[in-house]
């Protein structure tokens, strides 16, 4: 540790610490433009210039990379320093005259207008952060400087406008750019398939959502530069408790359990399949989950309802039954949409002056208190139009030419075709089985009903059980349902599970296979057949053996044993033969 003085205050730091960091310890602010924590200092903008006195020698140095040495005295804001900064900022202002960040900083040093030029278009101050980010941190080496002197500029390879093959579209360059000279354009127009909808940019390291448990940040390995290219690593550099661990891997944890509650949930129907509603194409057509996120006070708009251009909508259309109750997609009713659509209407009425139109087929307010809520929403002045919306198109509204939508539908109650102008449309997309529902079903040996959801043992008498003892269902993996229904089903399933645990023992079906070792020739035909690995080979006796607790009694081995040495209790050959003879007792002779 060494001691130095900054603006008269003594501070103790490690030798070699950049003055900028040493000053931070004293809460002395030194402006920077080309500095970014985690990226090697570059000392190009010279805005962080300070004066260092060392013995008799006074010199101007850059605080971002000047290493602290013992006994030096640093002045961060004396007249010489202020003049240097002022003039450098004036030069930058002459270069990038309309960049707010530069204007603000220059104004701080009394410069409103530059004597060295005026360029309203230029935004790049050539700080090199993007170049260094791209080459040193991301290691993609897309951006670089070209030309020298005043002609210097940041270019993509060979100055081609698009360098898609090398650019990994990480957006880090735009993120570090202090002047907004780099913008990221989403050419694909794709929307992320993430469970938690987001309406704004997302970083590779984030807390998944506000209510996440545990509420700690996680790294998205698909987006993390460190994991993709081996570069970056900034988060680890800035995390003082050293909590970042890149080596952490997804783990497969094997648990020995006796009972399983399958609650694998659902997914939302992709509304962009129904092109007539413009989801994914028209700006202000949102999915219900996106709208829910917008209404959330911790969401991107802080709970305000805003169209893409940041204005409050004058009218919102909420379209029910997107992909459900529709023979082309899902025949079933998604059950939750009517009520949340009414909730949306209620909240919109509460927060804005917008008109709300509900386009519904049938209003299904079946739960406790639901009908009453429906009446209340109607009293609040929400317009309900019975009839499935036909399409959503872009439209003008008065003199405004863009950004408005028109919902076309038939109002079946008045028997007329209607066109309703709105600023925003919310689509109530269907609840549908997860893409991997089938695979999950195979894992747990679960059957699926024709709608693709898991099949309960009995629709009335056992709505949470399955045909497999010890495996239960809860929630939307069994079918669309709202929260009260889900909770009821889950608690029921939990009670069933606890009951079994309390009992402490389980009854097994007596259906088992067994091998008569006097008949087994040890051909090993059966060894490979058992899905439960219940058959092993006894190398001493040279016969195959069935582990009766592992055996589930399917009988495949019984059928396959060429020696007939395996017997399946409950379903022996003789029993089945007798059954055959019995049911064919009436078959006549030739």
């Amino acid at each position, binding site marked *: 540790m060494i001691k130095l003085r900054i603006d008269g205050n003594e501070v103790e730091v490690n030798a070699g610490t950049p003055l900028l960091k040493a000053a931070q310890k004293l809460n002395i602010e030194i402006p920077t433009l080309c500095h970014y924590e985690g990226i090697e*200092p*570059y*000392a*190009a*903008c*010279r*805005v962080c*210039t300070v004066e260092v006195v060392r013995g008799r020698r006074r010199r*101007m*140095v*850059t605080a971002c*990379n*000047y*290493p602290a040495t013992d006994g030096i005295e640093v002045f961060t804001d004396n007249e*010489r320093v202020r*003049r*240097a900064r002022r*003039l*450098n900022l004036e*030069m*930058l202002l*002459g*270069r990038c005259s309309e960049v707010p960040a530069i204007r603000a900083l220059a104004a701080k040093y009394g410069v409103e207008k530059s*004597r*060295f*030029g005026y360029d309203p278009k230029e935004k790049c*101050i*050539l700080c*090199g952060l993007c170049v260094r980010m791209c080459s040193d941190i991301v290691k993609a080496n897309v951006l*670089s*400087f070209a*030309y*020298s*002197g*005043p*002609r*210097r500029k940041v270019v993509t390879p060979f100055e081609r406008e698009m360098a898609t093959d090398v650019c990994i579209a990480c957006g880090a360059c735009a993120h570090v750019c202090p002047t907004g000279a780099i913008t990221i354009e989403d050419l694909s127009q794709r929307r992320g398939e993430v469970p938690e909808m987001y309406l704004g940019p997302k970083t590779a390291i984030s807390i998944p959502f506000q209510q996440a448990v545990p509420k700690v940040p996680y790294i998205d390995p698909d987006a993390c530069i460190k994991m993709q290219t081996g570069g970056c690593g900034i988060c680890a550099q800035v995390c003082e408790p050293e909590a970042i661990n890149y080596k952490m891997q997804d783990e497969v944890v094997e648990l020995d359990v006796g009972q399983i509650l399958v609650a694998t949930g659902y997914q939302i129907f992709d509304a962009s399949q129904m092109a007539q509603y413009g989801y994914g194409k028209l700006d202000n057509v949102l999915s219900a989950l996106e709208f829910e996120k917008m209404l959330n006070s911790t969401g991107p708009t802080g709970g305000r309802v805003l169209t893409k251009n940041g204005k409050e909508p004058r009218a919102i259309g909420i379209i029910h039954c997107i992909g459900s109750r529709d023979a082309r997609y899902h025949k079933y009713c998604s059950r939750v949409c009517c009520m949340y659509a009414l909730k949306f209407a209620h909240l919109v009425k509460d927060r804005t002056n917008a008109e709300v139109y509900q386009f519904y087929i049938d209003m299904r307010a079946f739960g406790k208190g639901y009908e009453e809520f429906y009446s209340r929403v109607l009293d609040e002045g929400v317009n309900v139009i019975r009839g499935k919306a036909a399409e959503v198109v872009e439209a003008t509204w008065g003199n405004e030419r863009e950004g408005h939508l028109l919902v076309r539908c038939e109002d079946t109650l008045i028997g007329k075709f209607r066109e309703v102008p709105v600023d925003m449309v919310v689509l109530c997309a269907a609840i549908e089985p997860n893409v991997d529902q089938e695979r999950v079903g195979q894992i747990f040996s679960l059957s699926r009903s024709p709608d693709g959801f898991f099949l309960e043992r009995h629709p009335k008498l056992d709505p949470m059980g399955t045909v497999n003892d010890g495996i239960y269902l809860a929630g939307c993996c069994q079918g669309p349902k709202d929260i009260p229904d889900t909770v009821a089903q889950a608690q029921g399933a939990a009670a069933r599970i606890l009951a079994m645990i309390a009992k402490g023992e389980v009854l097994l079906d007596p259906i088992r296979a067994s091998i008569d070792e006097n008949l087994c020739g040890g051909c090993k035909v059966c060894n490979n057949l058992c899905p439960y690995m219940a058959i092993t080979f006894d190398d001493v006796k040279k016969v195959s053996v069935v582990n009766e607790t592992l055996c589930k009694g399917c009988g495949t081995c019984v059928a396959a044993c060429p020696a007939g040495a395996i017997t399946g209790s409950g379903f022996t050959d003789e029993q089945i033969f007798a059954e055959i003879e019995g049911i064919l007792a009436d078959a006549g002779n030739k």
Partner: protein
Amino acid sequence: MPYRLHMMVCAGTGCVSNRSLELRDALSAELARRGLDKEIEIVTTGCNGFCGVGPILLVQPDGIFYQKVQVKDVPLLVEEHLVKGRPVKSLMFTPPEAKEPVPRMRDIPFFGKQMLVALRNRGMIDPEKIEDYIARGGYQALAKALTTMTPKQIIEEIKASGLRGRGGGGFPTGIKWETCVHAHSEDGVRYLVCNADEGDPGAFMDRSIIEGDPHSVIEGMVIGAYAIGAHQGYIYVRHEYPLALKRFMIALDQAREYGLLGKDILGTGFDFDIEVHRGAGAFVCGESTALMASIEGRVGEPRAKYIHTVEVGLYNKPTVLNNVETFANVPVIIERGAKWFASIGTEHSKGTKVFSLAGRVKNTGLVEVPMGLSLRELIFDIGGGIADNGKFKAVQTGGPSGGFLPEDLLDLPVDYEKLYEAGSMMGSGGVVVMDHTSCMVDVARFFVDFLQSESCGKCTPCREGIKAMHGILSRICDGKGSEADLATLEELCSVVADTSLCALGGSAPNPVLTSLRYFRSEYEAHLQGKCPAGVCRALITFRINDKCTGCHLCFKACPTSAVLGEPKQMHSIIQGKCIKCGACYDVCKFEAVTKE
């Protein structure tokens, strides 16, 4: 059988450009024709220094100096001098103000005041023959250093000699080496780099040394490497120096063949080899950190040198970087001793310095003089004064970012500190002389323009500041300047010098600052709409006075038909059409065209 005479044909770049190689071939053919080729040897030497009068031919041992020798002169020369023993007066050099030509080189004033240390073999050897270098005592210093001295002794010797970096910085070489030895290197690797990226326009000291005496550089580098414990060296040569490059490569091969480079040098067990790295001609790559970045394969941009390259340099290893001239001095110091070297020069500037004399001086060329010689001696005695009987106005030392010194500072000695104090610098040794025809504002603008385009553009003050200076200077040259501009210029100069990342930006304000300091009146004249030297076109007017004879030459010369007039009658100029190219002024034989 020894030769009777040696014909030393200069094959420096200047003389080669003047067809000295054709001259050599003609000479050789002539000698063969006359059967003299057994008696007389032709030696192709490096730069003689007196480049302004090339091609140069020196006949030894007589020391007869022939200048501007053409192929057509060969038969006469051979006949008269070589056969009949009568030196040819018509090919000899006549100093200014002298009536008779001077036959011997040593009697010519240009050479008289020079003292050759770095250029000790100038014109005496064939640079492509290591034998010639060894015959002149070459590699003796190396042998001495490697066999009788410890690295520490060498460093002490260099320190004691007071040798300072000849590249511009003037940092004491011995201390640099010592620091390098003490710098921490994890694996003990250290590098030695020779900077031959001579970027200053008009400067060609380094090129000349490599072209004329490459082994002196190699010898100096090997000694330096031994002193700091480096085993790998690099020489960074401009790509624009093909001849230097070729000769250096030949020299490297020869040195390796002779066991003076590579493994087990001179059987002492010391290994050192040199790799040649060619620069692409960026001025800024002469800066040490940019140069090293370039060797490493990165963009040649400087970085902050708060941690010196001597500690963390090439490939992050301790690195000694010296320029060509510095290394060329090293063998002499080792051979003749620090005391001898330190006896030359001034208190803080020891030894000699090579300068390239250029501009409005009579004798342009390369000269090596002891430190402490006054600028006046340099320009008037050696340089022969101002060309075309012009009037001295200013001298710029140290390359494009050197300052302009006026006449009253001509007695300033050549000395690192003295030049710095006067607002200029030693630099690498460029000396540009300006006479009354130069406008100081225009000259300042010219150099600032050069520096602006050679700035790498990394840091704000250098990129934007020099550009801003250039803008203001251009404005002044265009007659649109104001008093406030001068203040802004001074402010800019101060901040750019203060805050630039590297020496290029740090010294860039020198031309502006010194011109403002010593020639402020010229600026003020410009603000009044006058260019005293008549250079700035926006401020001058061409007129035709009554001396006009109607010769009609100006009429024909004018590219824009701005001259009016019938032959034999007085002409006049239409100002609206005149683009101020000066063609009429140049062609007029009667001083009838005037410039105001």
